[in-house]
């Protein structure tokens, strides 16, 4: 973001960035359409059903059929709703979720870094934007002017704020090892570690998941809670609150909520990939594997994390609300706080980086 000398320069700079952003978002949304199908297929397979298999070969076009169906339906706005906030809420959710992708580096090669904005506080940006996701939920729940949505919104506000704390501490442990808040630096730092210090070639043993295995587990569970995924989907627990904050929504506003939710989940998968699974680095840095472009590894790793999200959704029963709060505040918070102290001590006195 150098100082722009002329109007022409800054316009070209703007056009390039808009083009890159559009390319990233298009790719992201198409991938998400298929991840959504994967989610439903995995869920169906665990329950010994077939899942979506009618639209297109193997149901491959199901997500697009759903998109068209949502878009052409009538948006119903309840009479008692606060109209402006009611319509702003799904937009806020979707925009915040997509905005997080500005700083996520998907690869790096001789052309440079594959990232829209190489912010040197990238991790904090992700934390900030993901903490904004809660507003869509609260606004939607309140503006619906209805009991169940409001209950759902209150639950989600408490839940998302609670789990952000432990996610924050988990990220701090990674940052202590890396010594930078830049996402690209975090991945680069994973090029050497336990494996290379034992004399092996750079491999998956160097990534942070091995050094910080307990933190990776806490991150994964907190990410489930942060994105309101099962087993922590008390915000939209259908047995208690119908559909929670989304009860009154229909058509495109509902679509935007769903989209925002899935983008947030994929963002968490990407963040987990960058923090713990070595981003775009190949599993083993030897000949056939490191010819594969980095972005392929990145997508494979993120998809693997998403697969785990989908499996958890399929076979873990929903938590009770007080157990959810207990887990967040009484288990994860002390554990992650302790981990920050231990990792800081090791980095300071053990000389391990």
């Amino acid at each position, binding site marked *: 973001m150098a*100082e*722009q000398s*002329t*109007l022409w320069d*800054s316009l070209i*700079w*703007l056009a390039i960035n808009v083009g890159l952003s559009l390319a990233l978002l298009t790719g992201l949304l198409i991938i998400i359409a298929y991840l959504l199908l994967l989610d439903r297929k995995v869920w169906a397979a665990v329950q010994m059903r077939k899942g979506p298999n009618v639209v297109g070969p193997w149901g491959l076009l199901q997500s697009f059929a759903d998109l068209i169906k949502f878009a052409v339906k009538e948006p119903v706005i309840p009479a008692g709703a*606060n109209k402006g*906030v009611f319509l702003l809420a799904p937009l806020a959710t979707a925009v915040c979720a997509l905005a997080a992708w500005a700083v996520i580096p998907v690869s790096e090669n001789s052309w440079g870094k594959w990232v829209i904005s190489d*912010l*040197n*506080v990238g991790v*904090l*940006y992700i*934390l*900030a*934007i993901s*903490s*904004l996701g*809660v*507003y869509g939920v*609260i*606004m939607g729940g*309140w503006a619906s002017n209805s009991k169940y949505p*409001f209950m759902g919104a*209150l639950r989600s*506000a408490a839940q998302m*704020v609670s789990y*952000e704390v432990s996610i924050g501490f988990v990220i701090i442990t990674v940052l202590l090892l890396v010594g930078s*808040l830049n996402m690209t630096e975090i991945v680069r730092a994973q090029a050497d570690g336990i494996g290379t210090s034992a004399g092996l070639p750079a491999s998956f043993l160097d990534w942070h998941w091995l050094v910080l295995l307990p933190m990776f587990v806490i991150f994964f569970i907190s990410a489930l809670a942060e994105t309101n995924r099962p087993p922590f989907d008390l915000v939209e627990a259908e047995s208690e609150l119908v559909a929670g904050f989304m009860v009154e929504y229909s058509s495109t506003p509902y679509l935007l909520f769903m989209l925002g939710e899935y983008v947030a989940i994929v963002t968490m998968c990407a963040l987990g990939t960058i923090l713990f699974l070595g981003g775009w680095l190949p599993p083993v840095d030897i000949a056939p594997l490191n010819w594969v472009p980095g972005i392929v590894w990145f997508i494979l790793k993120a998809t693997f994390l998403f697969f785990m999200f989908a499996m958890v959704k399929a076979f873990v029963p929903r938590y009770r609300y*007080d*157990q959810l709060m*207990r887990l967040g505040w009484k288990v994860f918070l002390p554990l992650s706080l302790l981990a920050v102290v231990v990792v800081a001590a090791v980095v300071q006195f053990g000389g391990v980086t």
Partner: protein
Amino acid sequence: MLTAGFFYLFAVLAIASATMVIVARNPVHAVLFLILTFFNAAGLFILLGAEFLAMLLVIVYVGAVAVLFLFVVMMLDVDFAELRAGFINNAPVGLLVAGIVLVELIALFVSGAAGGLPSAIPAAAPGTEALSNTEQIGRVLYTKYVYFFQAAGLVLLVAMVGAIVLTLRHREGVKRQSIAAQNARTPATGLEMVKVASGGAVVPSSEAKR
């Protein structure tokens, strides 16, 4: 060029939404405008090159404090007619406070323009221009200002303990779940074999001891 454009965008939006905070009739709308104000302030921080402060502003104020504000405002049953009736009575005090702040700002601006302020700011972190501002803040916060930092932390801790002391109450007769006790349960402790006489009732041993 672009920077200037963004400055005016953020500045105008910040002032407009700050005005809307006090003008909006619906308190929830007012809080939402407050959030927009925070957001634009964060944008201004980024333009100043203080991206760390900008992100902290969004994480702390927008992500946590304003959520609680919104929470409270949505839950409270505020009587707006009564609130507005007090507006004329409170206006002189409000104007006085606003006037004092204006005078202070003018004084600050005049002394700053005279060269008092700019020399003080770089003196806080000398010789670290090559570092990112996250590192610069970290270096002075944990060395030169470590006692102030710890003292601020202590104040927050005391406030937290105080809030817990004020609101915590142990109610008698409430059955609480003890997950450790549940997990420690074995068939030996959880099961009890009782010989029931024909026509008699099952009396658990815990009841029988009373």
